[in-house]
């Protein structure tokens, strides 16, 4: 029987990132998937990044992950969202050529020597008590593994709905993994049901592009990877159109035939991605809804009409789509559908995304109730790093709410679970001003280098950048100027007699790079990228200083880890109700415990004192 340190089940965005991350840590990795040629497929919209999501991609890249680089290679329309707002809320996004993206991911995986791709269906897990030992394939073969990472997406009990038609399926064209689902059902894990939808796909050759408005990419495209500075391929524009009253009438008249409104679907759908049926019903007063027509690739005529996902019957889709301006003669190449699927309650996972009930089994991606390529890949990174760390007998790799969006997501999922498909937003990060897309490398790459999961090339570039940043920051910090000097340079501030350092001056609204260089000529010696980064870092300094105490308190709570075998029953003074709840939820640290409903400060103190006592006994 073959044996790998880490075995990844699934070749989607979570699986690909998990396999790559584990392999970077130097352990032997197998990625088992139904179709090797489908690794890296974008099964929903042809875009990567956005607000919150772009932050995640940058953080993955800071760990030398593969998503950012693949998106750069496949990007055909780069836009920095919120470009005119502050850097903390800017998110990189790109339309991606599906074929190029898939190729980039497959290439990235194929070049890793300690990664083996196995095309097979996983039929079950091999268990030894509560320890995972490997997997069984549908042909009866077995593969041994120290850890298994499940990234099976919507495949678990997936049901596809088009109108009143439904059939089992993962995504269109793929069979669901019924065997594995049956075994997982036996594990008695908490699970729930979610749904998501897709729009019909259009043949771009039948769209009246010249009648439509278009949205070009940015003049100065911003890449995802800290290693890249310009797009790799030709850039294109997206088209813009909108629904109208006639579209809405058609949808309204046929609501009863929609899978969602006809009562065929029980799963909960995302509020931020409503179907056209939802939009027409819930926002009845709106007479139009915007649609972005997103080309799926440079050599692909398929167009993804973003904004009209649906589960109406095929003929109704034909009719409402053709009621839309510019789409009068459009040909639908694949009809929209809704998919329902099972997810496992992520509160059953610890902060490494390992199942608490089953040692060595990790889960990442949609199986945990999230949505989105970026959320999936980020979880893949967490699971991959930790499965490898376990194989190497190293301490777990933990992410904090105070250092990354990844930490925010893992904590949200494992503390609160999900009620709808979980998507990242910048508003989820309480330290949004610190956790920026532009400083993901400054926040995380040193940690990644310490884990030894970063290429020498990237590590070298990173050290050089950090040195330059430190020197440039120091250059400004060393200069102290009176308000008169600043005023003479055209920077108006109150003449309060307080001196300002160059760094503080740069943060002033009135300041810009030219003015600061006039005041501190030495600063001109640094590259424009470094100058720009110093400016971004300086912008929120006073806010970040104010948050430091909160951050320190939260970090302190997060750092007090509650071991998996901690005995809550041994604490006298806890109410029975609370003991039950603690045993059920098994908070990973004091911060998570503090968020449990009904917890009191005294109960937290008892747990903390208990931690010290049990820690002492073990030591």
């Amino acid at each position, binding site marked *: 029987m073959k044996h790998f340190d880490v075995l990844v089940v699934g070749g989607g965005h979570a699986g690909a990132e998990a396999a790559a991350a584990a392999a970077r840590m130097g352990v032997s990795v197998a990625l088992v998937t139904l179709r090797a040629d489908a690794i890296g497929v974008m099964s929903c919209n042809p875009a990567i990044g*956005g*607000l*919150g999501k772009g932050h995640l991609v940058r953080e993955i890249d800071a760990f030398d992950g593969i998503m950012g680089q693949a998106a750069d290679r496949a990007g055909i329309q780069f836009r920095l*969202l*919120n470009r*005119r*707002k*502050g850097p*903390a*809320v800017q998110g990189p996004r790109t339309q991606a050529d599906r074929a190029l993206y898939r190729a980039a991911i497959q290439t990235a995986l194929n070049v890793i020597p300690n990664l083996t791709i196995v095309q097979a269906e996983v039929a079950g897990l091999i268990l030894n008590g509560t320890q995972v030992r490997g997997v069984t394939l549908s042909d009866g073969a077995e593969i041994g593994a120290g850890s298994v990472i499940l990234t099976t997406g919507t495949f678990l009990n997936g049901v596809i709905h088009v109108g009143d038609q439904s059939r089992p399926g993962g995504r269109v064209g793929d069979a669901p993994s019924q065997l594995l689902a049956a075994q997982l059902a036996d594990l008695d894990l908490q699970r729930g049901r979610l749904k998501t939808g897709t729009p019909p796909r259009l043949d771009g050759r039948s769209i009246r592009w010249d009648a439509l408005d278009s949205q070009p990419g940015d003049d100065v495209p911003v890449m995802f990877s800290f290693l890249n500075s310009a797009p790799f391929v030709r850039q294109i524009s997206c088209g813009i159109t909108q629904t109208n009253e006639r579209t809405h009438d058609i949808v309204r008249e046929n609501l009863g035939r929609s899978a969602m409104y006809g009562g065929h679907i029980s799963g909960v759908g*995302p*509020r*931020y*991605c*409503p179907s056209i049926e939802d*939009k027409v019903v*819930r*926002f009845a007063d*709106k007479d139009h*809804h*915007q*649609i*972005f027509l997103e080309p799926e690739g440079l050599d692909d005529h398929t167009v993804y009409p*973003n*904004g009209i996902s649906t589960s109406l019957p095929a003929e109704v889709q034909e009719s409402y789509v053709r009621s839309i301006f510019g789409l009068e003669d459009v040909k639908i190449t694949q009809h929209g559908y809704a998919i329902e699927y099972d997810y496992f309650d992520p509160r059953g996972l610890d902060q490494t995304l390992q199942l608490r009930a089953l040692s060595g089994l990790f889960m990442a991606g949609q199986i945990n109730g999230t949505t989105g390529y970026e959320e999936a890949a980020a979880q893949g990174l967490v699971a991959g790093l930790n499965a490898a760390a376990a194989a190497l007998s190293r301490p777990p790799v933990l992410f904090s709410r105070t250092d990354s969006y990844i930490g925010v997501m893992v904590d949200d999922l494992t503390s609160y679970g999900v009620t709808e498909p979980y998507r990242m*937003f*910048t*508003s*989820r990060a*309480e330290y*949004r*001003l610190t956790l920026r897309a532009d400083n993901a490398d400054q926040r995380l790459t040193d940690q990644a280098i310490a884990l030894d999961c970063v290429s020498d090339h990237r590590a070298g570039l990173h050290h050089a950048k950090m040195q330059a940043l430190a020197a440039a920051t120091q250059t400004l910090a060393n200069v102290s100027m009176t308000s008169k000097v600043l005023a003479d340079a055209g920077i108006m501030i109150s003449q309060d007699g307080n001196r300002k350092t160059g760094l503080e001056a740069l943060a002033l*609204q009135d300041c810009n790079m030219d003015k600061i260089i006039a005041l501190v000529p030495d600063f001109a010696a640094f590259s424009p990228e470094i100058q720009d980064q110093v400016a971004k870092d300086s912008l929120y300094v006073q*806010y970040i200083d104010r948050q430091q*105490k909160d951050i*320190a308190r939260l970090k302190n709570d997060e750092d007090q880890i509650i071991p998996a075998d901690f005995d809550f029953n041994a*604490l*006298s*003074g806890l109410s029975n109700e609370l003991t039950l709840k603690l045993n059920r939820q098994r908070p990973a640290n004091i911060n998570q415990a503090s968020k449990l409903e009904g917890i*009191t*400060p*005294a*109960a*937290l*103190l*008892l747990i*903390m*004192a*208990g931690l*010290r*006592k049990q820690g002492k006994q073990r030591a």
Partner: protein
Amino acid sequence: MDTIYALATARGRAGVAVVRISGPRAHDAVAQLCDLPPMRVAKLRRLVWQGDVLDEALVLTFDYASFTGEPSAELHLHGSNAVVARVLQILSTLDLRMAEAGEFTRRALENGKLDLTQVEGLADLIDADTEAQRKQAVRVLSGAIGKKVEGWRQALLRAAALIEATIDFADEDVPVDVVPEVRELIDVVLSDLHRETVSAISERIRDGFEVAILGAPNAGKSTLLNALAGRDAAIISDIAGTTRDIIEVRLDIAGFAVTLLDTAGLRETDDVVESMGVSRAISRAADADLRIFLLQSADEVLLTAPLPDDLVYLGKSDLRDGQGLSGKTGQGIDDLIEKIGQILERRTASAGVLIRERHRIAVQTGISALNAAKSALPRAGDQPELIAAELRVALNALEALLGRVDVEMLLGEIFSSFCIGK
């Protein structure tokens, strides 16, 4: 590390109230109130703040060998509400933070000063404190103020959701200019909060309770006032209607600062000036915290009726065989003082100095964050994240009043208001 403070003793009139301070700035803070005594030596010190003498207190300081394992100090104050409230309020301005429930214990634990058994011993105390805070929050929310608080909650949630919508859904069909609505929402809450801080009960403790004396003309009200004041504050004569305007005297009654109000005698009158005095007496007495009714006979009915808790006495007892109250002989005065003390005691105990102070700080923090959010509004287009950051601070600060407002609620507000999802 923050320096924290709290009232360490249960509040009570009798004896001593101990305020405990712990953290790196503990000694600095005490040094701003008095000469720092030598470490671990109890010294009597006069606490002075900006020229005002606050109290004569026993002051103790500790270095790292303290309950919490941090530099700390104890102020043993006289157990007067006014003194305690004032000292806590001053500490809050010295870059110190009021301790959370159990926070002293937590620091002791983290610094290796306590073991599990000791924490177990303290757990009940900490839970009691938490429970008191929770009850107070419930009381605030269920009282007359409850509706108003719910209004603030809705307004701030909406304001934060509007700003967040322009940030997280910039690509979507959300309104571009949310500033006018946000400004209006913030303004409403701000002016309410300002009003609340003025009328808050903690101000009562600092500035005193009002106790009005009511009765028919010539019932002996002014005599009673003078007796309580120990001086001739009000002119007294046998002529009915001598007192026309309201006379105020500040007193210390049972450790509470009390403003005693002597009012015009209540009667129907054609005299324009006197009738103005009467209506002023009635309305001012209605606003007072407590009323003392002096009756001339047990069945006398006055122009305004006593409320529950109000004290009703027969006046001029010197003229009626020692029954009731007399300002002239002092009869019944001790009993009156004791009763006033008991009533005010009960009212303040049901809120608790510590908790009120906590609310005051919360409201102050909320106000300054909302002001900061407002001044950042002109930059909503290019830096909405700064407005969002201030609104978040305000919502967190007001959590004790508003209840928790988390990201899910913000998102809920956004998704129900705007059609998100292109």
